[in-house]
C-alpha cells in the first residue's frame, strides 16, 4: 500500500462525510483562527504603539522630580520642587550624550478669544522643545531668546486650540489669546499631530516661553520637568546615566541617597509598552491555544466514532488484504488531513479576522508568518497525536470480528 493510495482512501472517506468533516474541523478552525488573529492583532498593536511612540521621538528623554518608590510606583508630581533652571544650565553645559534640553512648566486653564472659550493646557518651554518632542510649525515662528529672557507674552497654538478659539477664516498669527487673564500674542501655529498611543489629543495645547508661564502664571522658580534629546536612540542609556550623575551632583546627593528625580527615555518606554503588549499577546495566544487543544480532542472523539462506525468497512478492507498498518495509516492520514485542512481554513479565517481588526482599530495589518508556520506544524502534530489512538484501535481489530460486526 503506498501513501498516494492511502491518501486517496482518506480523501474519499472525508468527502463521503463532508458535513461531519467540517464539524470536526470547526474546533481546529476556531483554534487556529483565534491563535493567528490574537498573535497578528498583538503584533500589529505593538507596531502601532511603536510607531506612535517614535512619532513622539525615540531619542526623547524626560526628567521628573520626586523619588521612585520601591516596587516601581512613581511618586513624582509637579509639587516636588527639586528641579531648577540651574539643572538645565548644567545639563546644557556638561552632558555630552544629549543634544538639546528644554524645561517644562504647565498649567490648565481657559483660553479666551472674543466670545470663544476653550479649556486647554499651556506649556511653558524653551525653543528646542519643538525639536525634542517632534512638533513642527505650520506657520509663524518660535520664541526668540529675547522673548524668553523678557517673559514675553507670546504663544504658539496647536490645531485644536485654533479650531476652538478662533473663528473660521481668521489667521491666528497676530491675534491675542487670554489665558489665566494674561493676553498672549500668537506668533506661531503647530502642525496637526493627531492622537497619541493613549488616545490623547496632541494638538490641544498652547506653548509659551517657560519664563512667562513660570513667573506670570504660576509664580514659581522651580521647573516641573525637563525634556532632552539623546544624540541617538542607542545613546539613550548613556544619556540617562550622564543626566543622573550631573543631577545628583547638582542636588548634592550623597552616595547611598536616593535620587530625588527620575529619568526616563522614550526608548525605555517603548520597550516597556512592547513587553506589556508581548505579554498580553502571549496570554491571549495561550488562551487561543487551549481552544486548539480542544479542537484536537474533538478530532480524537470523531475519529473514535468513525472507527466504531466503520468497523465493518475495516473488516472488509482487511479481508481483501489491508494490513493493520494500512488501516492505521488510513485513519491517521484522515485525522491529519482533517486537522491540516482545518488549520488552513483557520489561518485564512484568522488572517481575515486580523485584517478586519486592523481596519476597525486603525492599526497596521500584520500577518505573523511565524504564527502561520507554527499553526501548520501544531496542526499536523495534533492530527497525529489525537488520531494515533483511534487509528491504532482500528488497526488492532481482528479481521473476522470486524467483518462480522453489525
Amino acid at each position, binding site marked *: *500500500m503506498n501513501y498516494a493510495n492511502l491518501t486517496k482512501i482518506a480523501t*474519499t472517506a472525508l468527502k463521503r462525510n463532508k458535513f461531519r468533516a467540517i464539524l470536526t474541523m470547526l474546533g481546529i478552525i476556531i483554534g487556529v483562527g483565534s491563535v493567528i488573529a490574537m498573535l497578528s492583532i498583538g503584533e500589529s498593536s505593538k507596531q502601532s504603539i511603536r510607531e506612535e511612540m517614535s512619532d513622539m521621538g525615540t531619542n526623547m528623554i524626560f526628567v521628573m522630580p520626586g523619588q521612585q518608590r520601591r516596587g516601581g510606583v512613581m511618586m513624582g508630581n509637579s509639587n516636588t520642587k527639586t528641579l531648577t533652571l540651574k539643572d538645565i544650565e548644567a545639563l546644557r553645559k556638561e552632558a555630552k550624550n544629549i543634544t538639546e534640553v528644554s524645561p517644562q512648566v504647565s498649567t490648565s486653564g481657559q483660553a479666551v478669544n472674543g466670545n470663544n472659550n476653550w479649556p486647554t493646557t499651556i506649556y511653558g518651554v524653551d525653543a528646542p522643545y519643538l525639536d525634542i518632542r517632534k512638533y513642527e510649525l505650520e506657520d509663524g515662528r518660535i520664541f526668540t531668546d529675547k522673548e524668553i529672557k523678557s517673559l514675553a507674552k507670546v504663544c504658539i497654538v496647536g490645531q485644536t486650540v485654533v479650531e476652538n478659539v478662533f473663528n473660521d477664516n481668521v489667521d491666528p498669527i497676530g491675534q491675542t489669546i487670554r489665558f489665566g487673564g494674561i493676553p498672549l500674542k500668537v506668533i506661531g501655529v503647530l502642525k496637526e499631530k493627531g492622537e497619541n498611543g493613549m488616545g490623547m489629543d496632541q494638538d490641544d495645547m498652547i506653548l509659551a516661553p517657560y519664563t512667562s508661564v513660570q513667573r506670570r502664571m504660576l509664580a514659581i522658580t522651580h521647573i516641573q520637568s525637563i525634556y532632552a534629546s539623546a544624540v541617538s536612540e542607542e545613546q539613550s542609556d548613556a544619556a540617562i546615566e550622564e543626566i543622573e550623575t550631573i543631577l545628583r551632583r547638582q542636588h548634592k546627593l550623597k552616595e547611598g541617597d536616593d535620587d530625588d528625580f527620575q529619568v526616563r527615555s522614550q526608548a525605555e518606554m517603548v520597550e516597556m509598552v512592547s513587553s506589556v503588549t508581548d505579554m498580553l499577546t502571549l496570554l491571549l495566544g495561550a488562551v487561543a491555544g487551549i481552544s486548539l487543544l480542544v479542537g484536537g480532542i474533538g478530532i480524537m472523539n470523531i475519529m473514535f466514532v468513525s472507527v466504531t462506525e466503520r468497523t465493518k468497512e475495516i473488516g472488509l*478492507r*482487511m479481508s481483501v*488484504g489491508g494490513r*493493520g498498518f494500512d488501516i492505521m495509516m488510513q485513519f491517521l492520514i484522515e485525522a491529519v488531513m482533517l486537522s491540516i485542512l482545518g488549520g488552513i481554513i483557520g489561518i485564512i479565517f484568522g488572517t481575515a479576522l486580523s485584517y478586519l481588526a486592523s481596519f476597525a482599530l486603525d492599526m497596521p495589518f500584520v500577518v505573523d508568518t511565524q504564527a502561520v508556520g507554527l499553526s501548520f506544524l501544531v496542526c499536523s502534530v495534533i492530527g497525529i497525536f489525537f488520531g494515533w489512538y483511534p487509528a491504532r484501535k482500528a488497526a488492532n481489530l481482528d479481521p473476522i470480528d470486524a467483518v462480522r460486526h453489525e
Partner: protein
Amino acid sequence: MSKAIIKVSELRKDYHVGEMTVHALRGVDMEIYEGDFAAIMGTSGSGKSTMLNILGCLDKPTYGEYQLDGVNMGTMNKNQLAGLRNNKLGFIFQSYNLLPRTTALENVELPLFYNSKVKTKERKERAMHALEQVGLADRMDHMPNQLSGGQQQRVAIARSLVNDPVVILADEATGNLDTRTSYEIMELFQRLNDNGKTIVFVTHESDIARFMKRNIVFRDGRIQKESAVSDRFNATQLIEALPVDEDYES
C-alpha cells in the same frame, strides 16, 4: 484429480463463550483441487462459515494444519496473512459487503489498492475487466444503493476476481437472493469455473449445491459425507426453464 490447492488436516476450532467452550470444528480433513467447484453443505451451526473463514485466512484454527497453494498457514504472521488474502484469495459474503457511497468500480478496485505493485492505470483496467466478466461494465459508476441485490453480489464477485486469486471462497453467496437471481449468480460461477477458477461455495440449500461438481457435507463440526454431484444442474438451462411470470426485472 489435479493438484491440491487447499489441504487441511485435523482442523479444530474452539470458541470460548464465558465458561462454555463451543467446538465449532472437531477435526476436519479436506482437500480442494485446482479447477474444483465444491459445495460445503450442512445445517445451520454445523461449522461451515467457521471452516470458510479459516480457509480465507480471516480466522486461525485452534489446532490442525492448513496449506494454501503450498504455503503452510501456521507459520504466517498477521501481515503475511493479509498479503495472502490480497494475492491468493477472493472472498464473497452473503451480505455483499460493498463500501457504501462508493462506485461499483471503486469497490472492485479495493483489493488492488492494497497491492503496491499495481499502479493506478492497471488498477482501473483490471477492475473494469472484472466488471465486464460479471456483466456490469455499464454500471461502473453506480453506487451500491443504486444496484439490485443480484447486481451488488456481482460487484462483490468482480471484487473477488480482480486480484486473480487461486481460489474463490463464497459464504451463502445466494442467501439473500430470489430464485431467479440465485440461478443467474450460479450461472456466473459455473462460467468462472468452466474458465478454470477454483471455487469453494458454502450453502445450506441442497438445490444450490447441485450446481457444483462436488458436495462436502458438514455436521457438528465434522465432515459427514463427501460426494461428486452426479446429476449436476446447468444454470443457463434452468433459467430458460423458469416460468415466464416469474421473469421480473433482474
